[in-house]
């Protein structure tokens, strides 16, 4: 048995859920970013898998989307981490639940 598209999709769904878990249940800002990165990577895996199992893989659309998505994820990580650092400078914390200045 060779791995089928279903297997790849299950793996990527598991990765997405783990990323969601990290983003929703951790209070540290860096963990949230890690979770988002994992979810993006899961999406990339889906793109590549759909490209490979498509009836016409000659057009590398999935590969292109994955490449652009990696570039955007890198930009997102850079900005996100810069935000974490500047928030830390202001409030001396990286715990997102303590950043509640706007709360009524």
């Amino acid at each position: 048995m060779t791995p089928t598209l279903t297997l790849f999709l299950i793996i990527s769904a598991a990765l997405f859920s783990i990323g969601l878990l990290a983003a929703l249940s951790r209070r540290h800002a860096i963990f949230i970013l890690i979770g988002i990165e994992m979810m993006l990577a899961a999406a990339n895996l889906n793109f590549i898998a759909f490209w490979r199992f498509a009836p016409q893989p000659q057009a590398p659309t999935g590969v292109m989307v994955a490449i652009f998505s990696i570039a955007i994820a890198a930009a997102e990580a850079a900005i996100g981490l810069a935000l974490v650092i500047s928030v830390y400078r202001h409030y001396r914390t990286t715990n997102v639940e303590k950043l509640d200045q706007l709360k009524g």
Partner: protein
Amino acid sequence: MSTAAFIVIAILMLAGALAAATLSKLIHAALCLVIAFIGIAALFFLLGAEFVGLVQIFVYVGAVAVLIVFTILLTRHAEEPTSGFNWSGVLVAVAVFAGLIWVILQTPSLSAPAPVIEALTVKRIGEVLMTDYIWPLQCVGLLLTAALVGGLILVMEEKR
């Protein structure tokens, strides 16, 4: 595509991801995230997208992971956030996973075997990138420049 390699890589990758999401020490979590990223790159190799796999390692392991560990280093004097879990998040994640699995298993058209294709060369990717995808490429260039400038402005020393 060999199944043994697939299973080993998938287990390693998911274990790394799970460790990255649940470990209490930040630096260990970041290093486990690297394992997960390398696993994803290996899956890309297995799927025949060598270029994307190499870019994945180059960008994520070489740049994003280093950025993350640097940020951890620069913010390490923050008081440790309470290590407790937000259990409602776990519940949501499990529910989403169950939903996704249910949808995937319900879809009958997914079991088609992979068609035999000629290898996707870097040259072909470059040609497509420079013809059909030239506008997205320019936009990504603009986005990366904006991210560069924005990142610099965000972490600049504040004048008091």
